[in-house]
């Protein structure tokens, strides 16, 4: 909670930094604040604290997500320095991002449907604006608009679900709902189950699971690359955090209602985006589909054992780090162009081997090649699924991850195989440092996954 206070304060301060003579110090200040948030989250470890009459509960899961979100945001700020370079928009962009982080943290720690709703909206509203932050670009506008439409559409479903559940159980508190469910194993009205499914649909939109994913590629490719990076890491983490928080603690008692639906969604989420990604020539779209595909693996872990959230958390961590690495390279490669195709990567190894190596490692990690972080993420998901008897689903997942290899390797092949006449790219020391940190993290998470895996074993 202290972390949440700090981040909220940070948001307000960065909003007001517009007027003081604070603009110059803003980035430094934000980084310090987020670091402080991480530290505070770590200090609260193993203490379950309840706030606002139980509306927010900071248990270990929430704290872990808070820390992950904050750390990803720090790295994200580092990679998107130039996004904040323009004087006119520095403070509002910063504060929008920080408020999105606030929403994410709330989504990871809510214990009441109202907080879930508010968290989602705080997050989404900032992102609608950020997605459209390239005002003169039609595709950016379009991305913002589609994101907005789909976001509020999904919210509608979510709210209708919440309303029905409230009607059936008389409460918005997750634990009260869970108790009511436990108390009336057969006595709940039918519309309760409709409510659960509607919430599932609403959240499926938010985590962009197939068939509710169609907005994601458009939004990801239209938004400025840095914003896309934010969406596919922090936002995705938050959405999945919210999803598992409610389904693993509250609705697990009525698992039979949603389990089959979720399995179908999961299989679709594994198959369709991975196949579609193969046909993409726009790298951002490709990564968008890939990020949708990754949701499939997370859902596989979730379907096989809804209460083992450690696996999902680890997967998200590895995914975030790898995605950030991929997007930082993408951002550095794209320059001023709006649409970045695979051809942009031609001969990148010759042009700048730092970039080439980083994105290679990132993509290999996303593809799940050992000993990188992504491998252990996938491995744990598969192992968990096999352990709970979902071997056939694992085989589907394995096949789709092979398809995944195909499109990731298109970029790799382009970098090492194709020739390009484009001028080489030079990096600043800070950029090199960032890439190094991201590579190091990708390896470190792969070589020492215990650090994170043991977090949830207490």
């Amino acid at each position, binding site marked *: 909670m202290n972390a949440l206070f700090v981040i909220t304060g940070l948001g307000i301060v960065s909003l007001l930094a517009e007027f003081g003579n604070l603009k110059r110090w803003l980035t430094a200040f934000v980084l310090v604040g987020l670091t402080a948030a991480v530290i505070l989250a770590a200090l609260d470890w193993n203490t379950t604290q309840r706030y606002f009459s139980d509306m927010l509960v900071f248990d270990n899961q929430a704290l872990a997500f808070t820390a992950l979100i904050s750390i990803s945001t720090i790295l994200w700020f580092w990679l998107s320095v130039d996004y904040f370079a323009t004087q006119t928009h520095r403070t509002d962009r910063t504060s929008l991002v920080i408020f999105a982080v606030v929403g994410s943290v709330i989504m990871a720690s809510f214990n009441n449907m109202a907080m879930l709703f508010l968290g989602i909206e705080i997050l989404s509203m900032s992102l609608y604006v950020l997605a459209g932050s390239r005002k*003169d670009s039609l595709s950016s506008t379009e991305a913002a*608009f589609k994101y*907005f439409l789909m976001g509020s559409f999904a919210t*509608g479903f979510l709210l209708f679900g919440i*309303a*029905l559940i409230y009607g059936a159980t008389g409460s918005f508190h997750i634990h009260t709902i869970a108790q009511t469910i436990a108390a009336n194993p057969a006595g709940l009205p039918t519309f309760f189950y409709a409510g659960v499914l509607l919430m599932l649909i609403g959240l499926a939109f938010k985590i962009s699971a197939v068939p509710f994913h169609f907005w994601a590629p458009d939004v990801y490719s239209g938004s400025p690359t840095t914003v896309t990076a934010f969406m596919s890491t922090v936002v995705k983490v938050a959405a999945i955090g919210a999803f598992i928080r409610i389904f693993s603690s509250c609705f697990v008692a009525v698992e039979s209602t949603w389990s089959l639906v979720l399995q179908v969604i999961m299989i679709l989420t594994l198959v369709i985006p991975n196949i579609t990604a193969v046909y993409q020539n726009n790298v951002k779209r490709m990564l968008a589909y890939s990020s949708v595909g990754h949701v499939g693996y997370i859902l596989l872990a979730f379907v096989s054992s809804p209460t083992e959230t450690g696996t999902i958390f680890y997967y998200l961590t590895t995914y975030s780090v790898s995605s950030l690495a991929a997007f930082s390279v993408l951002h550095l490669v794209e320059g001023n162009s709006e649409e970045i195709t695979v051809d942009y990567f031609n001969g990148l190894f010759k042009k700048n081997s730092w970039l080439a190596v980083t994105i290679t490692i990132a993509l290999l990690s996303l593809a799940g090649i050992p000993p990188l972080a992504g491998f252990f993420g996938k491995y744990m998901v598969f192992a968990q699924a096999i352990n709970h008897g979902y071997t056939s689903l694992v085989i589907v997942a394995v096949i789709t991850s092979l398809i995944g290899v195909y499109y990731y390797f298109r970029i790799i092949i382009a970098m090492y195989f194709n020739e390009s006449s484009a001028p080489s790219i030079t990096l600043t020391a800070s950029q090199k440092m960032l890439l190094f940190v991201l590579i190091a993290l990708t390896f470190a998470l792969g070589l020492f996954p215990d650090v994170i895996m043991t977090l949830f074993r207490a």
Partner: protein
Amino acid sequence: MVKTVPLDYYLWLAAALFTIGVLGVLYRRNAIIIFMCIELMLNAVNLLLVAFSTYLNDASGQVFVFFIMAVAAAEVAVGLAILVMMYRNTKSVDINILNRLKW
């Protein structure tokens, strides 16, 4: 409070409104109308919440409605701003022209 109207009626009404909203979002092509349909969806939810709140004698449902209204307002503000931006770039609010990003 006298609950002369059965709860089921509210449920069906809300469901109908919600469905109309959903269909509107899916089938209409004018951005403003889509906005309105989304608002319709939210208001269906509000109606439902208020009805439940009354029948359960629990005020939290109505508080939730406040939240929804406040957030919906904020959402509309952002949405309209985006719409204005879109209009500036395209001179139209027909979402059919937004097909550039389709795969």
